[in-house]
């Protein structure tokens, strides 16, 4: 007993040193290679750092908010922002709807082989984005692609999916829905399992229709899950990059140039890094605002 007490008294100080020993590698790496660059990006966005700056940092001047004001005057930036919003605000809800639909199907008591279907639906999510983007580029081919072939059965004329500025973004959205709905689906399935069965039994006794049960029990009970799924889907979708890079190179007529693609081009193709850092920060602010709005909405409803 006495030794145990002595032992317990000894713990804190020793654990303290040990703790820092365990933490040091992770904190150092994340600090130096993540938090430090994020902070530096803020400073970078206030300079005219470019190719000359890379050659000699002495060529860099502090320009205040000039990058930001130039950004707001550049039509290409507004276009990229519009494209990104289009992708996130159409693709996001669509992905969530498909995920929820799939989760509801797989939660039905009437269905068996759930594990098999779940695995199949989840498979697109684990695949390599670049590889599937290339595959879909051929599926969307205006002459040889399967999409137009299938549509021709319905009398729909050939669509130049990736070559027409009106269709390129919808095509990318469709692929993104296919690629990522499985992830949200799994989270929804877990959320649905957590809803107590008694609620449905009580509703059934009251004679509530399936639609009514979904609207008054499932949806409200699922709302924390829904907020989480919405937040992570939107954060991910605002970072659209590889799909347009591989499938359209941001075209046609820049109709699929996203904010991150614009940042990549400005920063790593033209080396206007100060300007690109300003783009990155606008992206960060957009993501932050969207996240805060969603949490606020959730709080209001609760």
């Amino acid at each position: 007993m006495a030794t145990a007490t002595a032992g317990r008294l000894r713990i804190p100080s020793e654990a303290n040193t040990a703790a820092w020993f365990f933490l040091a590698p992770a904190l150092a790496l994340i600090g130096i290679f993540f938090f430090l660059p994020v902070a530096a990006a803020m400073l970078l966005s206030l300079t005219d750092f470019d190719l000359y700056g890379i050659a000699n940092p002495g060529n860099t001047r502090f320009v205040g908010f000039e990058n930001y004001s130039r950004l707001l005057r550049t039509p290409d930036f507004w276009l990229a922002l519009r494209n990104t919003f289009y992708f996130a605000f159409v693709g996001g809800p669509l992905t969530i709807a498909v995920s929820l639909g799939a989760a509801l199907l797989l939660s039905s008591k009437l269905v068996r082989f759930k594990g098999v279907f779940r695995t199949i639906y989840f498979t697109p999510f684990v695949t390599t984005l670049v590889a599937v983007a290339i595959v879909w580029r051929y599926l969307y081919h205006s002459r040889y692609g399967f999409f137009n072939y299938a549509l021709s059965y319905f009398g729909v004329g050939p669509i130049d999916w990736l070559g027409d500025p009106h269709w390129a973004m919808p095509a990318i959205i469709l692929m993104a829905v296919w690629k990522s709905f499985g992830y949200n689906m799994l989270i929804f399935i877990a959320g649905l399992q957590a809803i107590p069965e008694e609620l449905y039994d009580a509703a059934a006794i009251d004679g509530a229709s399936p639609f009514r049960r979904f609207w008054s029990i499932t949806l409200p009970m699922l709302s924390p899950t829904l907020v989480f799924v919405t937040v992570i889907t939107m954060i991910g979708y605002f970072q659209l990059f590889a799909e347009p890079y591989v499938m359209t190179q941001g075209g046609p007529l820049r109709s699929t140039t996203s904010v991150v693609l614009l940042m990549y081009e400005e920063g790593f193709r033209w080396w206007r890094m100060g300007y690109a850092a300003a783009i990155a920060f606008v992206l960060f602010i957009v993501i932050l605002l969207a996240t805060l709005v969603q949490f606020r909405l959730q709080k209001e409803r609760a």
Partner: protein
Amino acid sequence: MTAITSGERANSAGRRDRFIRALLYALLVIGAIMALLPMAWMVSASLMPAGEASSFPPRFFPTRVTFSHYVDLFTRLNLGRYLLNSAFVAFVVTLSSLVINSMAGYAFAKLRFRGRDRLFRALSTGLVLPVQVAMLPLFLLLKNLGMINTYWGVIIPGLASIFGIFLVRQYALAIPDEMLDAARVDGASEFRIFRSIVVPGIVPILATLAIWTFLATWNDFMWPLIVLSDESRYTLPVALANLAGEHVQDTELMMAGSVITVVPVMLVFLFLQRYYIQGVMAGSVKG
């Protein structure tokens, strides 16, 4: 009389259930076909003779199976090299992430030190920071360290991850304090406690972390694209995107390249999906 009615009612309910069940299965099967079709066509087209995947009407099955595109990729287009690059990068990142994140996750969960919770909260804010914000200065930093266009430039930002620490911490919280204290009373060092009590106790979450990290690193595109300029160091996704630009017309060749890129992650996922899915669930708990 009553018995008959209720029997009839049960019968009609049974019929309705059968109808709904058929409908549900129809939807599920259609969904499964749509989920698998692009992948199936990718595999099938990779086996077609050159030019066949670009014919009208589109073909789903090859007239004649050929492996010539795979041979081409490995002999003429250096794909073996890219495969090794990807494997090396993913392997190193996974291994280091296992060691470093599990140590930190354990410390946040079980060791008592000043400012622990505040530090953890500060670290968590990093989860909402888009990685792209860090990329420009990180590039300049690594350039000064001479790590641009090296494997290390790709590897270093992945060595530790906030998500990984989160994952381990969540799991390690369940380790009973009495067990650790008992070992301390017996005079075991903190490192020994970690190695022989903590690590065996968190093996399932380490499996999750390993698979999650491996797949994310294997699939990663933007950062390797930025860091690597020398073709011989390309990872598979970067090499594939590069090939797709040069060989737009060679549909079958590109499909073979996609198969080689996707198959390793598919295999890892199919065999270890239980652990992978656990990662999805653990991720959703943090919300």
